């Protein structure tokens, strides 16, 4: 399976990445593309920007581990994950997950699985910049619950 994982400061082109994943192939029948975009408000307050900090080395390794896990769960034909770091303004891209398979079910499920795990397990932290200063975004129970529903019965996850 073709897997592309990139962490970068620069923006990405979601349509170009999806095209690159399927170019020249006729076995792929379904591509799900998810893009996470910076909102202009956080908890009802307007924001100037987000700054994403990450743990170089571990971030790539964690994403690769979950891509492998997704591959073991669904018959995937290609996966692309791109996560930006640094300062990101409202309206700009933050994260891209593309999952390709022969049929839609696997592509939808794998894209959602990867996003749920990216939010709770990949070492990234968002800081909000607004006119009142800067503040770190707190992890939410909703995100933990979203990731937990993929856990296999009897399976184990280190350091929940």
């Amino acid at each position: 399976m073709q897997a592309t994982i990139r962490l970068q400061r620069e923006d990405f082109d979601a349509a170009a990445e999806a095209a690159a994943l399927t170019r020249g192939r006729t076995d792929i029948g379904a591509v799900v593309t998810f893009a996470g975009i910076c909102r202009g408000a956080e908890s009802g307050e307007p924001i100037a920007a987000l700054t994403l900090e990450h743990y170089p080395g571990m971030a790539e390794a964690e994403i690769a581990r979950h891509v492998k896990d997704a591959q073991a769960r669904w018959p995937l034909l290609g996966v692309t994950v791109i996560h930006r770091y640094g300062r990101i303004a409202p309206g700009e891209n933050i994260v891209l997950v593309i999952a390709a398979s022969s049929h839609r079910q696997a592509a939808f499920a794998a894209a959602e699985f990867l996003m749920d795990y990216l939010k709770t397990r990949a070492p990234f932290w968002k800081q909000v910049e607004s006119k009142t200063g800067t503040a770190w975004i707190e992890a939410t129970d909703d995100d933990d619950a979203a990731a937990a529903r993929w856990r296999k019965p009897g399976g184990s996850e280190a350091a929940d």
Partner: protein
Amino acid sequence: MKLVYFAWVRERVGKAEEDIEPPASVRTVAELIGWLTGRGDEYAHAFEHPKSIRAAIDKTHVKSDTAIAGAREIAFFPPMTGG
């Protein structure tokens, strides 16, 4: 061993990384947090709520009861908020 800090843990400790030599009696991640807390107000502040601290040894998530023997790099950070 090398310690690395991220996000508000880094801000509170006041540095991104440092080399430390904890005594042999410090065997687990939780014990290391306890030992660090005694090193100064900035550490006490960073680690005041141990339940809000996540740890990784050599770039892999670990639980607080994990042994630190043989670790090259231990990271401390808040719950993750990427994606």
